[in-house]
């Protein structure tokens, strides 16, 4: 019974990893590795880029080329890597704070640019590493260090945002179902253009501290109960969907991706200048 992750752990890294007992990050990281393997990618042609936060520590544990970049800027570094060498498979790991707040602007523009990256959002609805601030995906009314009376703003729906901004592939998985999660990530890797996989998970330390959500196992069971497949969600009313997490594929399109369009401009202008030379 194979478990791809064990073939990809960096030989000199110390385990267990730094994440808290019951944190979903390890489940997502293992799913990413299985997806990369299932997509048949050679590990030397994969680059994993992250920003800052608990989730952004993920690339340091696995044996791929990686960039642990600055807060919110994972997409900008990844864009540079991809444009410099479009043959590489570039995976972006970001948290909900890193990706949707500090890097929120980069996010919508990466969707609009439709550059061939696969972004995986480790979405636990809070800033864990930096002190329990409310993140842009925190459900309204939940508590955080910056929201002692409950957060006033409504949360971003990462998938709706990505879909409206033009990403080619948009899906949501949940850590309680690691196999569908792996399939969404694989599809994202195989898709030309920008892919976003939002992953609902739990933060049993910081989130629990502010919201008394219970021990890791209870939080996982509650998360599982909240997850509703999109097909079923389509038959439910807005009222019934309150507090639920809709999973599945939300967009799967074929708009030309950025580097292909860019190459085309170069080819076209090269042809034009050849013609000009012939006519002289």
């Amino acid at each position, binding site marked *: 019974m194979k*478990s791809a992750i064990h073939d990809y752990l960096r030989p000199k890294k110390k*385990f267990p990893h730094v994440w808290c007992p*019951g944190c979903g990050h*390890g489940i997502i990281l293992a799913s990413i590795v299985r997806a990369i393997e299932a997509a048949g990618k050679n590990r030397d042609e994969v680059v994993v880029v992250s920003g800052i936060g608990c989730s952004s520590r993920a690339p340091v544990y696995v044996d791929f080329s990686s960039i642990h970049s600055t807060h919110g800027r994972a997409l900008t570094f990844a864009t540079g890597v991809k444009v410099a060498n479009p043959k590489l498979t570039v995976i972006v790991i970001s948290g909900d704070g890193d990706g949707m707040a500090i890097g929120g602007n980069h996010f919508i523009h990466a969707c609009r640019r439709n550059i061939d990256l696969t972004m995986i959002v480790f979405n636990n609805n809070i800033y864990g590493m930096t002190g329990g601030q409310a993140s842009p995906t925190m459900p309204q009314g939940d508590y955080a260090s910056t929201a002692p009376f409950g957060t006033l703003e409504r949360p971003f729906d990462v998938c709706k945002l990505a879909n409206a901004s033009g990403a080619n592939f948009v899906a949501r998985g949940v850590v309680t179902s690691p*196999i569908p999660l792996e399939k969404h990530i694989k599809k994202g890797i195989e898709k030309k253009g920008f892919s976003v996989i939002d992953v609902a998970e739990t933060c049993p330390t910081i989130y629990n501290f502010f919201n008394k959500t219970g021990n890791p196992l209870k939080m996982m069971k509650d998360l599982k109960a909240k997850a509703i497949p999109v097909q079923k969600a389509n038959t439910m009313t807005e009222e019934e969907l309150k507090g639920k997490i809709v999973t599945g594929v939300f967009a799967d399109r074929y708009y030309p991706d950025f580097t292909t369009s860019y190459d085309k401009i170069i080819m076209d202008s090269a042809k034009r200048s050849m013609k000009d030379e012939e006519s002289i």
Partner: protein
Amino acid sequence: MSDEKYLYVKKNWCKRCGYCIEFCPKNVWEFGDDGYPYPARPQDCVRCRMCVNICPEFAVIGEEEVTIKLEGR
């Protein structure tokens, strides 16, 4: 090929969250007296890999070769 029913928990990586026990569809796992999970009913395992995939610590191992490779880590 390794043993069809091989299941192992690497105790120095396990953080005792209990996910392997909860999410196994065949109720194979239990906490042992030492506080760590162990396969109490390995004969019921259907090799669905849920335990391996849901363990956040990469501590559930389904192949003897992997256990040997990770020895001492």
